[in-house]
């Protein structure tokens, strides 16, 4: 395995936005303890803008760092903007991820999309969210 970037280690050692949001507007939980990662992402939405995002994650260093980064990235974004946040953007913002850990960024994107999907459902609106392909764990992109 390649080494984690210093940015990954930073977000792992001092993750941003850890915790729950009471009465969140959207919550998404993805992953599986058997596979080694579970992410739960909470969002607070006001006037179509994500005013707060928090996470809880069971997983490796990269899982925690991508959770931290994805919550950072979406805060202050509109729902439409947040929908465009990709796993590649998360990985890039972290200064890259080891190949074998790219699936963690995919999981972070999934957690976000799942929370947004939940937000639409809670609002009673048809969800435009397309979940990424469920290929996370064999993902071997660069």
């Amino acid at each position, binding site marked *: 395995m390649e080494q984690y970037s210093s940015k990954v280690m930073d977000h792992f050692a001092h993750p941003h936005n*850890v915790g729950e949001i009471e009465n969140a507007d959207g919550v998404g*939980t993805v992953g599986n303890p058997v596979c080694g990662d579970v992410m739960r992402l909470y969002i607070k939405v006001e006037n179509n803008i994500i005013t707060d995002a928090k996470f*809880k*994650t069971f997983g490796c260093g990269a899982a*925690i760092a991508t959770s931290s980064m994805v919550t950072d990235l979406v805060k202050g974004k509109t729902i439409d903007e947040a929908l465009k946040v990709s796993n590649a953007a998360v990985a890039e913002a972290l200064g890259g991820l080891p190949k074998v850990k790219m699936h963690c960024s995919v999981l972070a994107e999934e957690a976000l999309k799942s929370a947004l999907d939940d937000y639409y459902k809670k609002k009673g609106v048809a969800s435009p969210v397309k979940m990424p392909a469920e290929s996370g764990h064999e993902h071997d992109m660069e």
Partner: protein
Amino acid sequence: MRTVYLDHAATTPVHPKVLEAMLPYFSGKFGNPSNLHDIGREAKNAVEEARAKTAALVGAAPGEIYFTSSGAESNNFALKGLAQANSQKGKHIIVSQIEHFSILHPAKTLEKSGFTVTYLPTDKEGLVNPDDVAKAITKDTILVSVMHANNEIGTIEPIEAISKITREKGILFHTDAVASTGWIPVNVETLGVDALSFSGHQFYGPKGAAALFVRKGVRIKPQIEGGIQEDGRRAGTENVPALVGLGKAAELAAAEVGNRMRYTSQLRDKLQKGLQDRIEDMVINGHPVSRLPHNLNVSFWYVEGESMLLFLNMEGISVSSGSACTSRSLKSSHVLTCIGTDAAVANGTLLMTLGMGNSAEDIDYVIEKLPPIVQRLREMSPLYEDMMKKKAAAR
């Protein structure tokens, strides 16, 4: 900051006396043992002296020791070499499911070339049942390979009971003693085995020097062919300094093994108790008694292994998550799967293996540092959140 190395099952530092023994053989006495002149002789004599010491550690004759470059090579050599050289007698092999991959992968390769392999399960503490071996034996069985001690969970297998069975039936028996040699007594006569693997870097010897014991008269097919070295059974210019180091490490281990058992088991017990007293929902893996003295393998519910490992690393504490050899792979341990550990908690496993360089203060330090790391990660864990909510709801 204190540094505490608790990863002796991955590798050990070279003992200063071992390095001292090796040093003359790099640039000074650098000869090739195959050469007849004095410079070659000097190297040859050094290798043969190392062979005698290495043999003595496991109670073998010098002529029964073949040097290799690693435990993995010894295991490949044993499994493929014994199977290939004895296939006229039959083509069935028995191994346990908790063997190291350097046994399991060669077994798969042999399956592709016409052998059949039985993979024996273990009980929840990692023990192979000798009765299972007896039941698995067919007329076609030529070879059994069950490890002496498991490198992850430390369980020491009932090798003597198994060898009674194989001897009665005239079947070859190999044991992988890479994890045990140097830490508990290993004797090929007492164990009753026909072949036995061990590796220097696991007991304060150098990397690149390991051995396979093959009982006199047992046929084995060379895997690295084309040289007169190792009695024609393993080609390649001998790694003289490393073999000298292995010999010295063997000599030290033979003299010290009782002390090592006492010293490390007492620290290990202290560590185990200290963690048990401070951390809830923790599982000790492996056999409670028949276990390597320096081994502690623990699974923590709701947290993942790598993140614990990384936080411990920041505190100067080196441990493994799962087995050393698979710690860069994503799969959880096949050993924990075999003993039936819940897959969810298997991912939250730490392997801590102690050594002679660890002090009681080191253990106190780990007992101080690990519980808050586990707690911090649990507070970050959605699985812990769910459990706490369920608990609250039940109240």
